[in-house]
């Protein structure tokens, strides 16, 4: 600590912002801001997360350029690599179509959010004004020496001067990890625990589930290999479970072109021609345009 303080005191006097640093700041800064705005305004939750990744990456780059490679790479590995990845993981699990519910779950949520938002805006404005008026540029760091911001110096500070906050943080993280485990743990041997494969089979035959066997697959006949072909029961009637809900609910208009193509109602290109006739090309172009419009 004393060493680093000394180092900072030494070089603090006549540090300036170099041209390279200024250029990289004006390139990366707007990208970071754009990422943040994109995160807020993106409709899709996954896109939102990706914009945030962009912001984090450009912050990491800024750290790298300001001679703090350890911090920069840690930012990329920990935030971009691990935390955002987990976020994405959860978003994908939830599903891409899920939209935000607008129902307030917490009482007084809007009021609290407004107050906190104003507070954050105030802090940001204060920091900005301070940054624009009376902040002296920091001296350049020397990442090769522990005193100049290298990983070694950082480690020493964490395990000496900042040991207590560090331990507190780790206790917090461990508590969070334990909490997650306790909340998601299912005891297989408990009464309400997860059933094993064999127990499930027995339960199925006992009639605790809808049917003992899996649902019948689609029928595949000589005339068609479409998944929309229903399976037939022994008496020749259609097995209702074999009908795909997804296909049934797709509007017929959307599949019309494909159906026509499959049944051979559309004009086929000459078997010897390398390309379709010009008429076909015009038609398909038109169809594509329609697709685009839709």
């Amino acid at each position, binding site marked *: 600590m004393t060493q680093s303080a000394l180092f900072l005191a030494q070089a603090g006097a006549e540090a300036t912002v170099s041209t390279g640093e200024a250029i990289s700041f004006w390139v990366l800064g707007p990208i970071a801001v754009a990422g943040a705005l994109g995160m807020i305004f993106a409709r899709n939750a*996954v896109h939102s997360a990706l914009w945030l990744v962009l912001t984090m*990456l450009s912050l990491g780059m800024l750290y790298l350029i300001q001679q703090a490679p*350890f911090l920069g790479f840690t930012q990329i590995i920990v935030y971009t690599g691990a935390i955002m990845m987990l976020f*994405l993981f959860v978003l994908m699990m939830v599903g891409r179509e899920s939209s935000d519910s607008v129902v307030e779950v917490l009482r007084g949520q809007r009021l609290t959010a407004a107050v906190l938002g104003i507070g954050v805006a105030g802090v940001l404005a204060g920091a900005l004004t301070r940054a624009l008026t009376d902040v002296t540029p920091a001296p350049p760091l020397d990442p090769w020496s522990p005193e100049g911001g290298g990983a070694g110096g950082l480690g020493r500070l964490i395990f000496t001067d900042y040991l207590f906050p560090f331990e507190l943080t780790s206790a917090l993280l461990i508590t969070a990890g334990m909490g997650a485990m306790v909340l998601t743990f299912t005891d297989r041997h408990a009464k309400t625990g997860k059933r094993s494969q064999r127990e499930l089979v027995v339960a199925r035959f006992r009639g605790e589930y809808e049917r003992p066997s899996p649902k019948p697959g689609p029928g595949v006949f000589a005339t068609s290999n479409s998944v929309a072909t229903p399976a037939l029961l022994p008496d020749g009637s259609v097995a209702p479970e074999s009908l795909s809900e997804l296909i049934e609910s797709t509007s017929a208009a959307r599949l019309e072109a494909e159906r026509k193509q499959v049944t051979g109602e559309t004009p086929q290109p000459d078997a010897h021609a390398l390309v379709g006739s010009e008429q076909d090309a015009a038609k398909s172009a038109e169809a594509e345009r329609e697709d685009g419009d839709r």
Partner: protein
Amino acid sequence: MTPLLAQAQESMTRAELLADDPLWLILMKAVVLMLVGPILTVVLIVGERKIVGRMQNRPGPNRVGPFGMLQSIADAIKLPFKEQVIPDTADRKVYFLAPVIAVVPALIGLAAIPFGPEVSIFGERTVLQLVELPVSVLLVLAGASVGVYGIVLAGWASGSPYPLLGGMRSAAQVISYEIAMGLAIIGVALYAQSLATGDIVEAQASGWYFYLLLPSFVIYLISMVGETNRAPFDLPEAESELVGGFHTEYSSMKFAMFFLAEYTNMVIVSAFATTLFLGGWMFPFVGLDSPLNQGWWPVLWFFAKMAVLLFGFIWLRGTLPRFRYDQFMKLGWKVLVPAGLVWLVLIALVRAIRNDGNVSTGQILVIGGIAIVVVVLLTLLIPEKRVEDDDSVPITGGGHPVPPLDLKVPETTPRSKALKAKAKSAKRTAALASTKEGSDGDL
């Protein structure tokens, strides 16, 4: 403290040499490094197909060029010209972005790998490395962790279930195995007292870390296979379960880019393993000032070591069946991570005792040996797990069909009956024939 400073001094010279590089040299190195990944990919693909072919008693590709060695070039020309099929439900922007995200970090990773010592290129003294950072090890890790985005986003953006499952698996897999990999690397960093790859190689002049830090090496090797989604850990693209996994819906150039990313990642983790554990560019058993460790020769040693590791990748693929997903996670979290943690504590302990200076290596070995013996004796005290010993033989339900104990095996089987009948009839006809012959003779 002193060794740390001394090493920092040395690396300054290495970093300074790199900082002195003129722009043309930096550009040249960058271009060569960019090409290393793709060229090795082309070689690896055909090599893998030939080697796996030999392991499975078939010739492998043997049509294009001498011994089929130009097969990948033909594939590389063919792939970009194939039709692009884009699913209707795909999220188009992310769908196009994903292969790029997969490839670019993979190409960056090689920048921090030291391929050789100080050499002279067109009269310019330099080091065979593009960039030396005080934390270059983290650069490689960061590249790997960003590269996963490519796979995960590809899976999600395809808008179909199998790729999504592949993408999810990949995310979980890489996050889990990155921890084990990080623990293995921390061991090296503790021993080399540096996170700079150049320093780590030079610190191995007195002994390579693959035997000094054997557990770290083993953990790294396993997790590097997991990290690159290669067999037996290729769950994100398990073709028997998920069609093609995350790249099911990709075709043409974009598929080629995923291929490139996978093989380049293999090259990077192998190069990284060589740097961290196999002495980097050094020749075994000779000092740093030996002529074998001067000039351009070390590049050859480096690539030879890397080739051994890459062969290991292919060998694994030809040998081991794919892991089941839960087994794979169990291996990562319940074996590799705890083992890595325990080993890390041991290393830290030994380093702390060493840094004290009053204890010799012999003393450490003796005390360590005694500790191991005590632990082994203590494990002997743990009572053995009782296996319920009942004489009943499982009739059914044991997971394998077993015939009942009182099964009567009939003396005769239909086949033996048929055989007997056949023999009898043959004898009869023979007898008939002989009597006929005899009567003929009589006449």
